[in-house]
């Protein structure tokens, strides 16, 4: 979807219907996807294609107000019921219809979902344990990842989740996901419950980790700043029923979030998106009447 907004440097509307190279199938493709629960339509006619870029994943920020069906998009990719399967349309992951959930599409939730009975180390190693990786290798790799997400291996590895702060729990959740090298990472407002400072720290951690992970990340948020900072591409969703209002490409973050948020271009981009949302929401509402 394209819009004729004011031209801001660094913001380019992505070309409509981005055609992927013929031989590489797109990572994720939504074709006219609609999901209904009874009379309630949560998302309507959502269409997008995320191409598979060689040796590089994209960071897709899905931005929209609460209850606009952003999470539904993630759960359709993950194959989680009751949102999966879609009522209409097709959801394709690497050209195949989505089946049962799996570790190739790993999800990080907003709620803290660390397993209470496991130490940090055993939480991080959970996926490897399910794959049948031996105890010694599991432990080694878990410890590497504990360090990578900025936790102290000696101090934190043997702690239980109840002894951790919210930010630390989300670090564990990220390590637990990335250790499996998933092709697609689904993040459902993972920093939504954190205080502002922790949130910014987690954003820059995520950027650092994602650069080497080479995964395609779908990151749901209702914070415009977060979407603009993290996203290579932002899908702006309207509220219920959710549909894509606008799709735009953004430059990759080159500074930590605190500094980046002071840059005039950054501020301008955020205002541009806010104006777009206001304008399009208003026109959609008018069109509905």
């Amino acid at each position, binding site marked *: 979807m394209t819009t004729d907004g004011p031209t801001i440097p660094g913001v380019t509307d992505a070309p409509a219907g981005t055609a992927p190279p013929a031989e590489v199938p797109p990572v994720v493709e939504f074709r006219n996807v609609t999901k209904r629960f009874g009379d309630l339509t949560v998302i309507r006619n959502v269409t997008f294609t995320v191409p598979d870029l060689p040796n590089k994943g994209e960071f897709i920020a899905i931005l929209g107000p609460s209850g606009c069906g952003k999470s539904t998009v993630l759960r359709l990719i*993950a194959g*989680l019921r009751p949102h999966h399967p879609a009522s209409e349309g097709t959801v394709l992951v690497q050209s195949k219809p989505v089946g*049962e*959930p*799996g*570790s190739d*599409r*790993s*999800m990080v*939730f907003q*709620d803290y*979902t660390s*397993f*209470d*009975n*496991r130490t940090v180390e055993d939480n991080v190693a*959970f*996926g490897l*344990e*399910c*794959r049948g990786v031996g105890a010694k290798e599991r432990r080694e790799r878990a410890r590497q990842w504990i360090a990578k997400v900025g936790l102290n291996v000696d101090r934190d590895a043997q702690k*239980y*989740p*109840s002894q951790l702060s919210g930010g630390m729990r989300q670090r564990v*959740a990220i390590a*637990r*996901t990335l250790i*499996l090298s998933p092709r697609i990472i*689904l993040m459902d407002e993972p920093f939504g419950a954190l205080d502002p400072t922790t949130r910014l720290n987690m954003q820059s951690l995520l950027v650092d980790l994602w650069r080497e992970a080479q995964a395609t990340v779908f990151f749901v948020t209702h914070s415009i700043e977060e979407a603009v900072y993290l996203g290579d591409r932002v899908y702006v969703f309207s509220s219920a029923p959710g549909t894509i209002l606008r799709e735009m490409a953004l430059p990759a973050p080159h500074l930590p979030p605190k500094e980046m948020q002071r840059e005039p271009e950054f501020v301008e981009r955020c205002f541009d998106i806010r104006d777009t949302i206001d304008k399009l929401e208003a026109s959609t509402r008018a069109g509905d009447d």
Partner: protein
Amino acid sequence: MTIPSRYSSLMELRHQTPQPLRSLAGVFTVGLVLLVWWFVTRGSIAEDRMLSPALLPSPGEVVRSFGSLWTERALLASIAASLQRVLIGFGLAIVVGVPAGVVAASWRLFEAGSAPFVLFGRNVPMAALIPLTMMWFGIDETQKVLFIFIACVPFVFSDTTSAVASVPDRYVETAQTLGASELQIVGKVLVPLAMPEIYNGLRHLFGLAFGYIMLAEVVNAEHGLGRLLMDSQRRSIPQHVILILLIVSLLAYGIDRLLLWFQRGLFPYRTVDA
């Protein structure tokens, strides 16, 4: 008359009484009961007492009768016999009820199928099961153990089911997207996360099972606290009746504390209030 303001808050609605005042209040009421008990049973000549010793022996008489209960009436053998029955019967209920409860909570069709039986088992008066168990299992030890098993298993099953069912879906979804299979989710996520709740439920149910020994030992028990209690009444030894009641409650309380202590060691990541 006005109460000083620092004490007036003690009578506020739902106000939490601070320690050590809390313990003190308990000691006070027990002391009060003992005092009344002593008062209505005072005097060495039975006819002069306000209450006849046949109805209520004095506190001193009850305490002094401990010796004869211990030696002549083999208190320890009765405690051992009762505990053995409860442990075996309740142990069987755990071995059957917990796995079945986990299965029912994981694959809900089984729960739906078992619902009528759980409803029956939880609501049938326990004493009503005595004739049935005697009909099926005779009047020996088997009947006593299986009576406790049958009485407890519906509760163990349904408590386990609700403990497993109350693990939030988020954990299951997280495990799914980390690549766990169905069986792995049950074994590595649902059961461990529900375990503190299951254990806590079992601890409470053990108290219930312990209460059933009275019913189990009505017929043909050589030893047992229930048997001892009924004999004391038949043989008109009121001191022993009172004493056994106290011992049974203290024993149940002691076991509960022991299980709670284990609970804290078993699940260090979960703090449980007493």
